[in-house]
């Protein structure tokens, strides 16, 4: 019995070469050297910033080929973070701040061009009010350019002031209005000074500022003009202005606003109200009381605002464009075609985020938008909302499975989901009765059937939370997070692959990430080409390693039948040691570095090729068994070929054995 045991151990010593220990070394080398290909890629080099991609982790190359979820930040990643005033619509007429005279564009012209014909009398007054409203209703501060000579001649030439505000939208609006002829100068001694189109100075006394808050989504100022009229100018989201408007060309403006929103522009509506002196004093008193309240100040202020801001006269709407990054729409489209689900996580509000999503083609025209927002949850309970949504997506899915055999793709309904931070926290909150699991499951179920998800009003930690939720879901998909600012760092660290954009908001994201790229558009090449290549290379390398070891050891195993099971080695010990090191490591290493099974251009052109390697397709059991079978077959051919060749025959020419 002891003999059997010692024999077994001896056989283990003989056959332990089948375990490819050197595979780990080769894999590490291949990954490390392969990551250089990413940094050397010239297409990913950005001339503006002079930066190329950076690789901080060499371990994750093949994960790039396996991505199923991409979480992106909006501002700075999808958009350039550079607001630009596009157009304004006053009383149904659209104004665009460029002059096109005889087909030529004059850049520094201060005039405006009207798409529709010039309005008549009362319209002109409204027009003037609109411009003044935009010039006054904001919280922009002016930083004077000290390099300009501070003389009175400034009134004639156009001053270049630098506007600072917490919201870049406001800066864009003020600058846009400046281009239309109305310049906001400064706030001095409670007087706002503006230059109107004829370069005359107008002074308005600033009486009250009803500042912006995210709940009512508007802001107002109460000003007194030099003629003594008290105006209340209000500027805000269309959803909060339209219900309070009682006069004005509502329908035209509304249609224009909707059209802009679908195009992806950020829209704001402007309205005004003329206040009499007593109305104003009443309002002032209310405001004073609310401001000095010791308890529930927020609530009291909100109530007062509500009372004051009503019965407006609609002036018009503005559209500001946050230009998308170069080729962002193209990238997102390619990613979706490749079967990757794209989620946009942002801290912005829903309307602006939705606008951007439409612009970058995350939501297409026929995408049915499902909403899981706080507003909806207030109407129904969270439970009901979730059930409704899941029924919607699943019902369509169920009917689709019967049709999949016909292969029609035109009927497939795209679902897009919008969820905001508050709703998410409600879903994630653990409930005492233990049914919280259901909510998450339901939520994940809904998400799985949506091709695009937009999460707005997300705090940085919530971004990481949702990444984690997806990471730990049933199929454990590989997640990728991309962002550019410090608020994205938690998301980047949480995801499997974190990518930082070397951008305007500093290097925080780039330093904490696994890969850093200069622009969002480079993500396309990185995933579709590099990721795909890396995955194919590494899976081939791994399979090959097992194959060659099987080829090597199996003849040894077969030989035991012919040598009396005495553990006699077929090969010299030198060969046994050097086989893995010098004989077979170099070819596969070079293969793993250079292999391009499909050309890079084809991969870029056909993003759907990415699906071929999704879900670890090349390293599944089936592929592994195929390679092992191949190895066994080859080994049998090697061994028995040699056996029959040398059996009973002489191969040398001098007869010696």
């Amino acid at each position, binding site marked *: 019995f002891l003999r059997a045991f010692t024999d077994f151990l001896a056989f283990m010593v003989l056959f332990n070469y089948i375990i490819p220990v050197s595979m780990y070394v080769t894999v590490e080398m291949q990954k490390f050297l392969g990551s250089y290909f990413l940094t050397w890629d010239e297409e990913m080099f950005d001339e503006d910033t002079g930066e190329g991609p950076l690789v901080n982790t060499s371990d994750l190359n093949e994960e790039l080929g396996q991505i199923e979820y991409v979480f992106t930040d909006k501002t700075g990643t999808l958009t350039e973070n550079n607001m630009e005033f596009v157009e304004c619509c006053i009383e149904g007429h659209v104004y665009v701040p460029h002059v096109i005279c005889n087909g030529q564009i004059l850049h520094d012209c201060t005039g405006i061009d009207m798409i529709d014909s010039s309005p008549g009398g009362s319209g002109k007054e409204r027009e003037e009010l609109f411009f003044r409203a935009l010039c006054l209703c904001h919280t922009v501060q002016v930083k004077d350019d000290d390099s300009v000579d501070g003389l009175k001649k400034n009134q004639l030439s156009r001053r270049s002031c630098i506007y600072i505000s917490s919201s870049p939208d406001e800066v864009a609006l003020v600058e846009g209005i400046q281009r239309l002829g109305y310049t906001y100068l400064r706030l001095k001694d409670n007087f706002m000074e503006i230059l109107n189109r004829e370069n005359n100075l107008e002074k308005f006394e600033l009486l009250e500022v009803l500042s912006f808050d995210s709940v009512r989504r508007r802001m107002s100022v109460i000003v007194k003009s030099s003629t003594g009229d008290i105006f209340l100018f209000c500027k805000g989201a269309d959803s909060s202005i339209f219900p309070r408007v009682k006069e004005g060309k509502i329908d035209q403006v509304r249609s224009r606003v909707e059209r802009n929103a679908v195009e992806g522009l950020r829209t704001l509506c402007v309205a005004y109200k003329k206040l009499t002196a007593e109305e104003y004093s009443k309002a002032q008193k209310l405001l004073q009381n609310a401001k000095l309240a010791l308890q529930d100040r927020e609530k009291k202020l909100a109530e007062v605002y509500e009372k004051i801001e009503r019965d407006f006269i609609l002036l018009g709407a503005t559209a500001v464009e946050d230009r998308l990054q170069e080729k962002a729409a193209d990238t997102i489209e390619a990613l*979706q*075609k490749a079967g990757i689900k794209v989620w946009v996580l942002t801290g912005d509000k829903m309307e602006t985020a939705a606008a951007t999503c439409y612009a970058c083609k995350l939501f297409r025209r026929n995408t049915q938008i499902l909403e899981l927002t706080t507003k909806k949850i207030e109407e129904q309970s969270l439970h009901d909302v979730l059930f409704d949504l899941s029924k919607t997506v699943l019902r369509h899915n169920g009917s689709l499975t019967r049709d*999949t055999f016909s*292969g*029609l*793709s035109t009927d*497939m309904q795209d679902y897009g989901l919008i969820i905001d931070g508050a709703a998410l926290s409600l879903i994630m909150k653990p409930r005492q009765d233990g049914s919280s699991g259901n909510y998450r499951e339901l939520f994940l179920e809904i998400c799985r059937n949506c091709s695009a998800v937009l999460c707005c009003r997300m705090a940085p930690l919530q971004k990481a939370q949702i990444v984690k939720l997806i990471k730990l879901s049933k199929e454990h998909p590989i997640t990728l997070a991309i962002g550019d600012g410090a608020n994205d760092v938690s998301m980047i660290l949480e995801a499997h692959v974190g990518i930082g954009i070397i951008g305007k908001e500093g290097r925080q994201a780039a330093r904490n990430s696994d890969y850093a790229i200069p622009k969002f558009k480079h993500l396309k090449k990185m995933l579709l080409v590099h990721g795909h290549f890396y995955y194919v290379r590494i899976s081939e390398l791994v399979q090959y390693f097992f194959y060659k070891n099987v080829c090597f050891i199996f003849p040894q195993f077969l030989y035991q039948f*012919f*040598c*009396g099971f*005495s*553990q*006699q*080695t077929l090969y010299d010990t030198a060969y046994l040691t050097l086989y893995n090191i010098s004989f077979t490591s170099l070819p596969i290493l070079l293969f793993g570095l250079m292999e391009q099974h499909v050309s890079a251009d084809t991969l870029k052109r*056909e993003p*759907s090729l990415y*699906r071929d390697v999704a879900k670890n397709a090349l390293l599944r059991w089936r592929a592994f068994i195929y390679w092992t079978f191949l190895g066994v077959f080859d080994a049998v051919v090697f061994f028995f*070929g040699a*056996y*029959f*060749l*040398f*059996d*009973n*025959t*002489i*191969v*040398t*020419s*001098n*007869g*010696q*054995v």
Partner: protein
Amino acid sequence: IDYTGTDPSSPCFKCLNVSWDSTPPCTCTINFTLEHSFESNVFMYYGLSNFYQNHRRYVKSRDDSQLNGDNSSLLNPSKECEPYRTNEDKPIAPCGAIANSMFNDTLELYRIDNDTRIPITLIKKGIAWWTDKNVKFRNPTGDGNNLTALFQGTTKPVNWPKPVYMLDSEPDNNGFINEDFIVWMRTAALPTFRKLYRLIERKDNMQPTLQAGKYSLDIAYNYPVHSFDGRKRMILSTISWMGGKNPFLGIAYITVGSICFFLGVVLLIIHHKYGNRNTSADIPN
């Protein structure tokens, strides 16, 4: 020609159970007929079956430095040779199981020509590898050519009839560099193997080396194989420019080639029939 002698009708049956050290050695003769004449060089092999010269313990049981003529190893063989290392406190030269089991049958070939037996000259040089004979195996150095003196202090392997320095009378085929010994020491890979025994050189180009006809093989049957069901054979073989007679490679090539050709034809038909369909990439989004 199998001459083990298991069959009672075989002339070597009487030698079947003889022990290895019986004197005088048992002899037997087997007559056979050559159908065709053998041209060119003819090689005479002895073959053994069911003899596991590739067993691991057997293969490692040798001392190469001793065989290389190292004087210190001569008197102190390595431990690998156990249990054939020393005999009665004297070191064995050559040590080890491989040397101990050396094949010691003697075969002689006669041609029968009208009742006269003409002996055929068998050449015993040139059967071992050149590197083996001149590099790997060296006799121990010392002054004088007297091998007996050089091997002083050692004893012969247990199952050998004669000590190593009496293997042959010629001095360059004696001792460790005896070619039969060298051929035996090169262990075979498979349990059924053959080893080169003698060469029959061709005569002038006119006559065939071995003419067709009757021959007889005289055997001095020393090597007992019956105890482990082994078999012994004598093989005569010539070689062509491609090596010995081995149909395997030819059959293999022809088989694989015809399969490939057949598959090629089949795939050509399939390609022609179906390959011209215009399949664009129908990928559902």
